[in-house]
């Protein structure tokens, strides 16, 4: 993947930036998880999880298989609802809100297995990503109102900037299913950014990528954070998680066993035990 990640300043968040600064001060949390419990049938997937995601940081979420990472991720994204506990986003309770309402508030996600709109072109995928920020309705579309045309042009311009940001601008008119896998992942990130989220949830973004691609992905993630977007990343790849995360939360068997900076996590006894098994 010889994609050059280009630094286009403010191409992601020109409008919301100042607003989100005022809403979430430096020390507050953008996502607060309070005593979350979730079980599937008899299986207790998460038990009494509480932690905060700080704004403008990359928050890692790691743990062995079956630890409940993806469950927690889906609870924040809105694919599941918790049995108990609360989730705050920007001081608003979101645990009962539906997925599309959360996107409107500023939560965007990607999928572990990459879910693009495969019959559409690359740029169309990004345009769909702007759905919540555009307004043209049924009648104004049918009558081709001037503001609809203007909005469409603006949306296309912005989609191009976003493709430029992830390095896919030459492939705008290619069918998204024709892209190689690594680029599909980048496109999915661009599509998620198109809704101008305050937080971007990445579900194992390095799955299926080779070492070079993973490294470039790490750079892109940091670049997105530097544009003022908070990132929550569920990751299997330890080196990537340690490299990009400002803070890391570790889950094991549905419980939160550690939370801190990557350095703290690396020397944490319980984490060592969970990953390597055995002695304290």
């Amino acid at each position, binding site marked *: 993947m010889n994609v050059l990640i280009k630094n286009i300043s403010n191409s992601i968040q020109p409008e919301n930036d100042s607003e989100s600064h005022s809403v979430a001060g430096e020390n507050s949390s953008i996502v607060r998880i309070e005593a979350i419990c979730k079980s599937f049938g008899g299986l207790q997937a998460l038990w009494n999880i509480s932690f905060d995601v700080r704004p403008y940081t990359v928050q890692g979420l790691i743990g062995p298989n079956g630890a409940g990472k993806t469950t927690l991720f889906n609870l924040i994204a809105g694919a599941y609802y918790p049995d108990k506990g609360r989730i705050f986003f920007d001081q608003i309770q979101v645990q009962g809100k*539906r997925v599309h309402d959360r996107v409107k508030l500023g939560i*965007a996600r990607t*999928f572990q297995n990459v*879910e693009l*709109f495969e019959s*559409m072109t690359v740029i169309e995928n990004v345009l*769909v990503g702007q*759905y919540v920020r555009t307004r043209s309705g049924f009648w104004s579309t049918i009558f081709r109102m001037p503001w609809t045309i203007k909005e469409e042009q603006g949306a296309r311009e912005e989609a191009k900037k976003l493709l430029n940001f992830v390095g896919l601008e030459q492939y705008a008119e290619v069918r998204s299913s024709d892209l190689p896998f690594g680029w599909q992942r980048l496109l999915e990130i661009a599509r998620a950014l198109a809704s101008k989220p305050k937080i971007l949830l990445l579900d194992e973004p390095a799955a299926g990528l080779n070492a070079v691609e993973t490294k470039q992905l790490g750079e892109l993630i940091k670049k997105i954070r530097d544009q003022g977007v908070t990132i929550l990343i569920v990751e299997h790849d330890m080196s990537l998680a340690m490299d990009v995360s400002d803070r890391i939360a570790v889950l094991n068997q549905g419980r939160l066993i550690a939370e801190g900076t990557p350095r703290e996590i690396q020397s944490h006894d319980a984490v060592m035990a969970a990953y390597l098994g055995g002695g304290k």
Partner: protein
Amino acid sequence: MSSKLLRKTASYGIFWIAVAAAGMSIDNSYYLQVLTFIGIHSILALGLNMLMGYAGQISLGHAAFYGLGAYTTAIMTVHYDLSPWLALPCAICLVILVAFIVGLPTLKLSGYYLGMGTLGFGMIVHIIFREWTSVTGGASGYVGIPPLELGAFSFSSSRNYFYLVWCTVLISIVLCQRLIDSRIGRALRSIHDSEHASKAVGVNTRNLKLQVFMLSAALAGVAGFLYAHFVSFISPGTFDFIVSIRIVTMVVIGGMASIWGALLGASLLTLLPEWLHAFSDFEMIVYGLILMLVMIILPQGLTRGILDIYERSHKKYFK
């Protein structure tokens, strides 16, 4: 981009010229009638194509909306002696309302289950048409539905009705085309590709599916209105289950998610039975065989299939 626009304008131009040429040159009223039926079927197929081809939601009960449009105007014009132009908005509103009420619970289903749900709805409506004799006229239906008139101008001649129907087709095409090329159209297609991901980018899939279901029903209602005033006689048999299937077949044969495909499908399925009269007793067998062959050879439908063949030959030519 501009070549795309050019092609679009050109296809509209060709369409207009074809319609005008057919209207002016064809004097045989039988042919004009067949073409008018193609127009009515095209409106049905266009509407279902929005739902099925673009949003990926099947409806096996579209004949119900077609019938509701026809029956509403029949009852209002024959029974209450009202103007058809008053009946038209009433028919559209009623159909949209029914689509809303039916769609609210059924569109939560998907795939086969949605097919079953809409199938059941279609059958219920058909039974109502047949059995509620005091209102719908029962099995004998309605006779003497007045022809359409606009001031002193009458649409009773085949030629005038042909123009009326095809103008409606054109309006429907423009309407659908504009929706598809927009934010809403992209959201619809995204539901078809992955409803999961569509929600994740913030599309309220439930509402959008309901809206497109209502639009598609409204077009079927308009088709029903045009049908009733064209043949001046309606009975429940015209709106039964087989007709729903035929509309689905038009969309599939023509090519899903293609506006011109819907037109092509409607034309083929209207013309085939006319051409196949020569086979007399074997007519239905040949009809079925042709549909089977099209699906085996061009599983994506005629439009996509022909385009694929064209692209393939084009590539070879240049290499």
